[in-house]
């Protein structure tokens, strides 16, 4: 029993220790940039990597997710008492509130997160970060800040695209299977649309973007060792980001809905 309490206690201390380091890492990024232009260039490059680089996967996920949700809702609500536009309103609402932001960002945690962590981790173990420090450059600011800003700009854009396309997927599936027409779908979607829901989706997207980019940068930056540890950091980045996303998902729903 004592042993178990001890283990839990150390795990907890470890967590707070790591969390403290994470906060310090984020605060350490902010110093006067050496050359603003260089940072803007890097941010644009990262926007391309994160945004354009993830577009294909986001498109595929969004369309299928909308289509599948439509079929599934239709299957579950099969009854002459329920009017067909209800399906459209349920699909569009659940896409906006939960599926588009959360599923998209969980996938991005895997794709963008592992990429960020392994890129920065490799730079750490091959002493490239030390080289930056010796030059007098704030390495965390130089490496992580452009990624974080790029993520905060591009991930919400991807989420908006995803919301749009999951509705398109829903309409397509409805038409293709003959369950409901696009007019019926849109009628339902319009009837239940609340601007607040879109705002909520964007709040989620920003939160997740911050989580993915900062958690992954942190794990990459604190890598010690060699190639093996870079792999481990990249896995950790994905797992921790995903858990943090789900946790904050619940918290945001509790606070804002």
């Amino acid at each position, binding site marked *: 029993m004592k042993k178990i309490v001890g283990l839990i206690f150390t795990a907890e201390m470890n967590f707070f220790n790591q969390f403290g380091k994470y906060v310090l890492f984020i605060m350490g990024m902010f110093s006067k940039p050496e050359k603003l232009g260089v940072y803007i260039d890097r941010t644009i490059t990262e926007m391309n990597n994160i945004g354009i680089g993830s577009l294909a996967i986001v498109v595929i996920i969004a369309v299928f997710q909308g289509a599948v949700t439509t079929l599934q809702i239709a299957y579950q609500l099969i009854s002459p008492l329920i009017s067909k536009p209800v399906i459209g309103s349920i699909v569009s609402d659940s896409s906006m509130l939960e599926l588009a932001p959360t599923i998209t960002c969980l996938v991005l945690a895997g794709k963008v997160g592992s990429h960020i962590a392994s890129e920065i981790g490799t730079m750490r173990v*091959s*002493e490239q970060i030390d*080289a930056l*420090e010796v030059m*007098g450059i704030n390495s965390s600011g130089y490496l992580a800040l452009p990624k974080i800003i790029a993520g905060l700009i591009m991930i919400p854009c991807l989420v908006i695209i995803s919301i749009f396309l999951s509705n398109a997927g829903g309409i397509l599936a409805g038409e293709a299977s003959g369950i409901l027409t696009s007019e019926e779908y849109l009628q339902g979607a319009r009837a239940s649309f609340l601007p607040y829901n879109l705002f909520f989706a964007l709040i989620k997207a920003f939160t997740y973007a911050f989580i993915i980019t900062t958690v992954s940068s942190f794990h990459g930056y604190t890598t010690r060792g060699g190639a093996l540890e870079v792999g481990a950091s990249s896995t950790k980045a994905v797992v921790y980001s995903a858990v943090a996303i789900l946790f904050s998902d619940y918290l945001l729903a509790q606070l804002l809905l």
Partner: protein
Amino acid sequence: MIELKDIHKSFGDVEILKGINAKFETGKVNLVIGSSGHGKSIMMKCMVGLETPTSGSVIYDNRDFTHLEYRQLREVRKEIGMLFQGTALFDSLTVEQNVEFTLKMFTNMTPAERKDRVDFCLEQVDMPGINQKFPSEISGGMKKRVGIARAIALDIKYLFCDEPNSGLDPVTSRLIDELLKSITEEFKITTIINTHDMKTVFDIGDDVIFIYEGNNEWSGKVKDIKTSGNEILTRFIEASQFH
């Protein structure tokens, strides 16, 4: 000139550096020798600020590096160039972008001026014409030379090299040695080189410090090294083939 005053460094309970005092003169090739694991790399990291000494100070021409504010620290760092053991070239950037890096970050040079400077530095290390290659496309020896070019891109005053010729063939090693010697003399910089290679010591060394178990066991001129009368140093030199 760089001065070390009573540098101690511990990791946890283990004391790696046990009070090192040393002076590194301007315009000279200063060598740090010693067996593997006795603290040469840690000492260099303490000097360039990658590790913080547990106590003691590192003084760059009357500036106490270990106790400077961030802003002043950055000024000193612009005067430091370092060649890492694994070269640490930025592998997402081309050779040209690597050498250009500090110029872009810290100077207001125009692109044309930067290009000239990059070409000049690559010529210094005898590597012209590889501007557009990536580090993954050039050999280990070429990487070391590009690493030196990157280190000297700004007008530096201090050059640190951690084992510049480890993993290189004897011919390339000698070339790198000669290069470091000529750069040191031509630009009047303070060069500090960590090495195991006694040939380097006798070829290009001016002053030597011998690190043993975290202490500065012996220091002096290269010409006195064989007649030091220090038992441990004598054994170290005898273990290499040059005696």
